[in-house]
């Protein structure tokens, strides 16, 4: 089985949140608040242990291509995007997990083994996208599995299955990348010059994302980091610095007991 992934084309997202519901239902993800946030139609706010698909709603006083928004003379566009775990090629959560609970599946996705995780929480600050969280009720880390159980049965993930506009597309990652390039050209040619791909490039800071996006604005507008880098890229240097510091501590303490200090007591 080759690597599979999501291509989330936000230009055709209608903000219906069917993906959020399907994900919750299929994966039995607990309810995590039904609050009015005042953030447009968003009431899930952010990804976390109990939100594996999050639809962002952004209201901007800018035109969407040549569209007539129909609100007087005002420019307006409404950006919607269904965010999800990126299933990074170089996944920080997986790298830092001290129990081996997080692992890479045969589909190239990154999954938490709920029965192994002891809830150390290291994966939470390691993730450069703020995806994974520690579930209050169980005490262990939880995030999108790309419906590992469904994949094993030849089914596509619940969110992609339910998406009514095919904004969420699931499939072979290489094929999705090719399709995304074509789609980007199409959207741009149709007048939305601000369209860009996010996470499709294997040369980026996480080695390419298993779930990538077509966005209509800068990534940070949707709450995504503009240039995420897997933290473990710097780990060899961190170990070198920590090693030197440890040796310096050993030498420093030893030096304080040398006989040259005797006279001064």
């Amino acid at each position, binding site marked *: 089985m080759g690597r599979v992934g999501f291509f989330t084309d936000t230009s055709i997202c209608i903000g219906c949140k069917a993906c959020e519901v399907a994900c919750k239902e299929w994966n039995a993800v607990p309810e995590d608040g039904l609050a009015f946030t005042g953030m447009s139609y968003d009431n899930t706010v952010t990804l976390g242990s109990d939100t594996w698909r999050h639809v962002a709603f952004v209201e901007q006083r800018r035109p969407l291509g040549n569209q007539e928004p129909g609100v007087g003379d005002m420019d307006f566009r409404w950006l919607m995007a269904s965010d999800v775990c990126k299933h990074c090629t170089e996944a920080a959560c997986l790298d830092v997990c001290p129990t081996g609970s997080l692992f890479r599946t045969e589909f190239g996705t990154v999954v938490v083994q709920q029965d192994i995780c002891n809830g150390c929480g290291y994966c939470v600050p390691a993730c450069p996208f703020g995806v994974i969280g520690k579930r209050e009720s169980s005490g262990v880390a939880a995030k999108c599995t790309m419906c590992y159980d469904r994949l094993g049965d030849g089914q596509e993930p619940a969110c992609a299955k339910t998406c009514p506009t095919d904004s969420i597309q699931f499939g*072979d990652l290489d094929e999705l990348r090719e399709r995304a390039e074509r789609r980007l050209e199409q959207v741009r040619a149709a007048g939305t010059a601000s369209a860009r791909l996010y996470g499709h490039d294997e040369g980026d800071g996480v080695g390419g994302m298993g779930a990538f996006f077509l966005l209509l604005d800068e990534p940070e507008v949707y709450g995504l980091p503009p240039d995420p880098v897997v933290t473990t890229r710097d780990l060899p240097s961190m170990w070198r610095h920590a090693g030197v510091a440890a040796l310096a501590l050993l030498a420093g303490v030893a030096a304080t007991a040398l006989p040259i200090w005797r006279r001064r007591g």
Partner: protein
Amino acid sequence: MTSQTDVRLDGSAELRTEREATPGSAGDRRERRRSPEAGPEKGPEKGPEKSYDSYYGRPVLNEPTWQEHDIAGYLFLGGLAGASSTLAAVAELTGRPRLARVGRVAALCALGGSFYSLIHDLGRPERFINMLRVFKVTSPMSVGTWILTAYGPQAVCAGAADLSGRLPRLGRAATVGAGLVGPAVATYTAALICDTAVPAWHEGFREMPFLFAGSAAAAAGGLGMLAAPLSEAGPARRVAMLGAAVECVAATRMERRLGPLAEPLKRSPLLRAGEALSLAGALAGVTVGRRSRIAAVAAGAALLAGSACTRFGIFRAGMESANDPKYTVQWQRRKLA
């Protein structure tokens, strides 16, 4: 398996027409805005473009779930334990039995507190043993687990042999062994917090191990001064002075190098208090602390408090940098530019 999408595991091809839709392609909004008859524009869209550099001001990162009293407390206690073991080993080998005892007992107590904090912070404490399933050099927590596995029994052995007065040769060997591993216990925690996406921690990874080593040495020296007799506390006073100096130099360098990312560090009252207490305690220790037992106790207490302030300050500054999207977004934009 039937599906409506075309890229499928079974390769069936059937396309929905919606996915070819091109929002924004219809209409003549652009043209109308450019025409002079439309007159001057009104409303907020006329001014300089509003910059959308976050999603409703929400942080990009998820806040670390680590509890401050557990993990910041462990950063302090782990450092104190590791450096105390090294100080105890040096004291043991240079004929300072009472300073050695202070170091061993301090390490034993701090180690106990460390284990309590680390296990208490787990979401499933009863599964702490799962840490020993694997050894992963990519995970400082895994490496740290194994460092503690090498260090813990030796520190316990050294402390227990001292307190019970039994097996002196084994106790001596364990003292030296724990003293050799101690510096690793005191500095790996820097790699632990730096190996995250938290901006103020990650970007400080060059100085953090030295800051932690210095802070650990200052704490261990302080405790040695506080509890050991003046005649044997010489190395403790010098360790404290050296540690406080290294800690302050590393902190200053880090704040300078991080530029705008250093804001949470610079405005941390805990870090300023930590520096002041460490330096004051260390200076008092090597001056009046050499003659006056009371001064030595006060200086030692100040050093311990200073080290704790520094660790909690670093912890909080990291939390602050994780919770504000500007430290994530603007830093990454700067690097892209």
